[in-house]
């Protein structure tokens, strides 16, 4: 699977990585393997044997990325795809094979799609993931019949069990080379000598015990799809398909008494590339037109447009998150309706600008002004449950500024006394002379967060032109610092 150079030249190719200062082979192409080059050989030895050897650096990150892309591609055959690093994929095709003409056809299709894209793969189908892996890597049986796993894997070498290096060496010293050698022995002495891992793997590979796989993507609440005999590339056709799929999905959700909180459209290209577009809503919904609008806005806002290439042969719509949704009865005062309309607006804005750019204020129980109120995504739970700040005393002017600078801006000040309000200060090269001042309002830092932060003395000041500022002195004079620094933290209206 590391054959990343599709249509590679016929010369033997190896990938090398550095192990303890020596370049060793990490992978070998089919031609190189045929010449007897194997994993772990030093590059110098390999060069000595095969003078015309082509070597390239092994790039594990690129391998992982390729594997992830292949996993995405496999999503068209089954929703349960798991990575089997470093080079494998495990597909749970329970209940899927008949959709593609049976197991043999499905296996052919998968291999065919990858072959057309320049990738050589080996695939096997068996009752348990471990048996299938052993057969794919070491076996000659493409499909193990139900219950026939044990028979299929018995002739294979013990390497097919995927054991740790030291266990494998110990087995080979004991003269146990085939799975058949192990299968007939009682498991207790095996476990005592080679570790608990061996009998477990043996049982799984022999198909006696199944194992859970962890799919890359959790199973969605609801999923509908449309396959095309002739790939489609036209925008109108794509949109009509999504509309149909949404309608079907909403029917399914309605039957379950649910509404979707997230929707995901997947576009499978004929060449195997997969593109996904997802939107989220602020509350559960079954409104086809609204979700279609969100998806359309999201597609329009994509940095790189949805490129159909030679067309999409499968479009799928999944609802990853669904929540109970009863039929809503509009209230008499119309407030529910208004809240709903605003929540729809939030969804539209989120689809266009992203969740991190549509925000609401969330009040925190803190006396630190920078922490007392902050902006959180409007779709988050915090935004919905946040409390309002305490109401101000009637008749008081606003004691907190409309605008805040983060971080506070340093200012040069002239104060009459070191612990009094400033007389004049300079901010952004403009000199302000203070006409009115009120303070200090002493705000101690939250020592459990920032142990060394100085105490702040805040003043509300107004300059001769009538501009109002929120300034503070960092540090108590003589107790914390001798030359306190001044900062401008906010602007009042």
């Amino acid at each position, binding site marked *: 699977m590391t054959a990343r150079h599709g249509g590679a030249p016929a010369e033997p190719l190896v990938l090398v990585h550095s192990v303890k200062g020596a370049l060793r082979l990490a992978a070998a192409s089919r031609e190189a393997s045929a010449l007897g080059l194997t994993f772990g050989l030093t590059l110098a030895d390999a060069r000595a044997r095969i003078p015309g050897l082509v070597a390239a650096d092994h790039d594990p990150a690129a391998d992982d990325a390729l594997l992830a892309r292949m996993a995405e591609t496999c999503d068209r055959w089954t929703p349960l795809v798991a990575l089997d690093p470093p080079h494998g994929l495990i597909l749970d095709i329970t209940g899927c094979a008949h959709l593609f003409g049976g197991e043999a056809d499905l296996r052919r299709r998968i291999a065919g799609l990858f072959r057309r894209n320049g990738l050589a793969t080996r695939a096997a189908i068996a009752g348990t993931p471990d048996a299938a892996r052993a057969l794919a890597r070491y076996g000659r049986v493409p499909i193990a019949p139900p219950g026939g796993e044990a028979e299929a894997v018995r002739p294979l070498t013990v390497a097919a069990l995927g054991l740790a290096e030291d266990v494998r060496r110990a087995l080979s010293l004991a003269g146990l080379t085939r799975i058949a050698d192990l299968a007939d022995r009682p498991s207790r002495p095996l476990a005592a000598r080679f570790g608990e891992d061996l009998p477990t793997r043996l049982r799984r590979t022999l198909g006696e015990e199944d194992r859970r796989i962890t799919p890359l993507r959790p199973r969605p609440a609801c999923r509908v799809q449309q396959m095309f005999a002739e790939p489609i590339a036209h925008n109108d056709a794509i949109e009509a398909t999504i509309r149909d799929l949404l309608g079907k999905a909403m029917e399914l959700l309605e039957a379950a008494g649910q509404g979707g909180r997230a929707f995901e459209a997947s576009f499978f290209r004929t060449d195997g590339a997969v593109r996904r577009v997802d939107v989220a809503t602020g509350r559960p919904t079954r409104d086809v037109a609204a979700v279609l609008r969100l998806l359309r806005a999201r597609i329009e806002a994509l940095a790189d447009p949805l490129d159909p290439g030679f067309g999409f042969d499968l479009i799928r719509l999944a609802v990853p998150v669904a929540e109970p949704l009863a039929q809503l009865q509009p209230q008499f005062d119309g407030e529910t*309706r*208004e*809240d*709903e*309309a*605003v929540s*729809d*607006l939030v969804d*539209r*804005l989120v689809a*266009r*600008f992203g969740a991190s*750019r*549509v*925000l*609401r*204020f*969330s*009040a925190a129980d803190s006396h630190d002004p920078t922490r*007392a*109120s*902050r*902006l959180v995504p409007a779709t988050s739970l915090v935004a919905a449950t946040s409390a*309002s*700040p305490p*109401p*101000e005393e*009637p*008749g008081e*002017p*606003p*004691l*907190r*500024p*409309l*605008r*805040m*600078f*983060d971080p506070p801006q340093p200012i040069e000040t002239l104060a*009459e006394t070191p612990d009094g*309000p400033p*007389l004049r200060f300079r901010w952004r090269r*403009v000199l302000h002379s*203070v*006409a*009115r*001042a*009120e303070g200090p309002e002493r705000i101690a830092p939250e020592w459990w967060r920032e142990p060394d932060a100085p105490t702040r003395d805040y003043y*509300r000041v*107004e*300059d*001769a*032109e*009538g*501009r*109002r500022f929120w300034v503070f002195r960092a540090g108590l004079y003589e107790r914390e610092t001798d030359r306190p620094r001044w900062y401008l933290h*906010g*602007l*009042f*209206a």
Partner: protein
Amino acid sequence: MLAAHEIALARLRKDVAALEPGACRRGGASFRLGLPTLDAALGGGLARGVLHEVYARGQQDVAAAAGFGLGVALRAADGRALVWARQDLLDIEAGALYGDGLAAFGADPKRLLVVRARDPTGVLRAAAEAARCAAVGAAVIEIWGEPKTLDLNSSRRLTLAAGASGVTVVMIRLGAKPAPSAATSRWGVAAAASAPLEANAPGRPAFEAALLRHRAGVGPRTWRLEWDRDRASFESAPLSRFVVSVPAGGPAVADDGAPWRRAG
């Protein structure tokens, strides 16, 4: 013949009036700012479902302009949700919006939705989206400088969106010179000295608001206004209290040697 001309002229006037933005708006035609003399001068307040512009007069008047704009938006929204679209750049230039400060000004932070956009185009798009949603009380747009995308067309588009839904749009322009647009009213706002409280403490928000242009032909005029948070309304700033810079220390002395009386 003369009568026929007049009839034709009257019909034409009617057609033109029907083409005016905001002609098809729903709900109340206008909202009051709260100060009777100001509302009377404006012919019963400002129009709902149109665009109003507020310019900061100087670089240092950003907060005053924002305060006046927010006051207008709060009067228009009348307790309904407010959407505030602003550029990222503004956090550095003019400060970020502060929830507790908005609450202290009389805006409920829970009814406020903030949309941050990277560029002016995004801000305008977000605002247009908000202006199309009739459940929104008012949309506030805050834009720094004079971006190219903000032309007559874009303001006309906003006006149309606002007219269809009845959402009032208030555009706060910082660091920009007043330019032609489809706005119904245009204000130039500067900070004004507040009426001091006890011990010479700064008082309520005060503005010097100049009406630069009004579609209905109200002449240019300047008002000194105060914002009353408790009544959520503009008030006339008391002019009787003389404004002078008083040193924070001892008694101030005027040029002629007579001591000033402290106001408050």
